[in-house]
């Protein structure tokens, strides 16, 4: 217990990074099926446990871990711990209850339908139980352990920072989706297609969008920008925008060379394009790479240094 107290903030930071990859795979899978139902939401009730288990819980966990690893003050940490604990426990319980109910009522025709994966929907019950197992200790930690947070690093935030919370949440969702798609892309990629090479800028942007998030949390939040001077400060702050411009130019060129590049190679990643018959993938990739590349330096400049 003493060890945990001494390293608690590090533990949350490591978990924040460690969970990002598996959670991104889950969010991609969940979002994929959400997109499949976008036409009329006729299967919303059927898919609800999938949305909770594959999208909502991963989002809650990652956001919660961020606030635990980056508290703005001691009281804020305890509040975050309590809120995260309650949300994980509540939605974990809801997930277990819904999935069990669906199985018991034969709405899900078998405990092992093996559709999303080999053990679906039992996996949803497992995720639910894991969420409860994580949530309850967090609630207890918040309510019972009043020991002061010694040697913790705090990250002051202005009250205005809550205004960007919904946007940050949406960016996280997109970042999860892109990273999940990129990673699963090793399995789904159409390597043998003649236009596969033209997908490279797309893959790079799919990696760039979550990469910016990682860079912000790991690098930009921990550097003292005021201690940098001249060109160094300029490079550090605006290099993401430079990368975004280069990658978007490459994206433009590849889409001009073969306007059907996503028809040949992008279907596993961008089902929304082919459901709505609208070529939105390049716009989403472009918009979020620029939003991230501009937000990172602006947030870095605006941050309050402890």
């Amino acid at each position, binding site marked *: 217990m003493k060890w945990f107290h001494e390293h608690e903030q590090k533990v949350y930071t490591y978990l924040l990074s460690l969970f990002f990859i598996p959670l991104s795979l889950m969010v991609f899978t969940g979002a994929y099926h959400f997109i*499949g139902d976008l036409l009329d939401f006729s299967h919303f009730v059927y898919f609800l446990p999938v949305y909770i288990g594959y999208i909502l819980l991963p989002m809650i966990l990652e956001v919660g871990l961020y606030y635990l690893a980056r508290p703005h003050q001691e009281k804020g940490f305890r509040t975050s711990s309590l809120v995260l604990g309650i949300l994980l426990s509540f939605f974990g319980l809801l997930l277990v209850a819904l999935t069990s109910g669906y199985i018991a009522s034969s709405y899900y025709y078998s405990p092992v339908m093996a*559709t*999303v994966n080999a053990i679906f929907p039992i996996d949803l019950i497992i995720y639910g139980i894991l969420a409860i197992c994580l949530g309850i200790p967090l609630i207890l930690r918040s309510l019972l352990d009043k020991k002061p947070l010694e040697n913790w690093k705090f990250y002051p935030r202005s009250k205005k920072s809550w205004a960007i919370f919904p946007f940050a949440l949406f960016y996280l969702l997109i970042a999860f989706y892109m990273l999940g798609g990129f990673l699963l892309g090793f399995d*789904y990629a159409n390597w043998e297609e*003649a236009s596969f090479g033209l997908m*490279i800028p797309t893959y790079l942007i799919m990696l760039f969008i979550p990469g910016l998030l990682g860079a912000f949390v790991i690098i930009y939040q921990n550097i003292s920008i005021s201690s940098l001077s001249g060109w160094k400060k300029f490079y550090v702050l605006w290099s993401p925008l430079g990368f975004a411009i280069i990658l978007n130019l490459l994206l433009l060129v590849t889409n001009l060379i*073969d306007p059907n590049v*996503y028809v040949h190679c992008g279907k596993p990643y961008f089902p929304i394009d*082919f459901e709505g018959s609208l070529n939105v993938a390049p716009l989403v990739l472009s918009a979020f790479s620029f939003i991230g590349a501009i937000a990172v330096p602006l947030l870095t400049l605006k941050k309050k240094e402890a």
Partner: protein
Amino acid sequence: MKRKHFLSFCLLVPLLASCGGGGNIPITTEDYGHTLSMSGDEFKILQLTDIHWCLSTNIPRQKEYMDLLVEKTNPDFIVITGDSLFTATKNIASALYDYIDSLDIPYAVVYGNHDMQGMWSNAWMNENVVRENAALSILNDEIPGFTNWYIDIEKDGETIWQLFGIDSNSYQQDGVSYDYGYIHEEQVDWYESCVKEGVPSLGFIHIPLQEWKKAHEEDPDGIIGEMTEGNSPSSTPSAFFESAKNHNMKGIFCGHDHANDWNGLYEGVVLGYGVKCGKELYYGVSEDGYDITGAALYTIRSDKSFQIRHIYLDNDTFEFTGDVSWEDSAL
């Protein structure tokens, strides 16, 4: 090699390589063909279309549904005309073709616009489709579309019918939107290289050609059946119909528009829709109140005539709600 040169090399080589064409593997016309035999004077082809298995599909129940259609029709060959899946996973796609193969009836597939829209690669799906009973080969060729095939139906060692599966491709970019795919010129050339002159044939595709729209617009009374949604062919015209007409293709049958259920004669060729298999995604309801779900059966005969039969099977009650047939000569 310096690091930055290496990075540039890694990025540029695949980028430039992709601008060129693929490798030239010698493929002959015969590689696309398979042969099946007509034992009596008839050969029955069951068309299953727009099955659309997805995450919410009750797979055991849908297998029972298809079992009933197969039992009722006892086909010699099954043709699946596309959109068998919809934003599904590999497990679902495997389950579908495990089932199709387990029927122990020769089958072939033409892809629809949604078949590659799932959590898999093209190569994986091509391998998944070609099982033991598959009467199609998916070749690494330069012809647009994966599922271009033909089957010679032989009787006493002589080819008396040909069946063609032509991939109508999926989509094509059209500014900010996507238009449906069409049968390309190279596919028409390929088709002409596979045709046996004087032998009648049937064609199976997913996306209707523009001729479906023309048939309906020019002679709405000439079509038999119901049209409860618009025809949605590609806006790009295809030369396939003209070629098929000139090469003794007696009928072309598609899927795609789930709620359309008709056949009609257009410039000497029967054009028709299959019957959507199952209720997934959406389906039509006939004027008489039954669901337009089930299958189509084509019986080709040694005297070169053929019959079209539409069988309607309710997806909820599993009761057959209709069974209509037309002789080609009556259309």
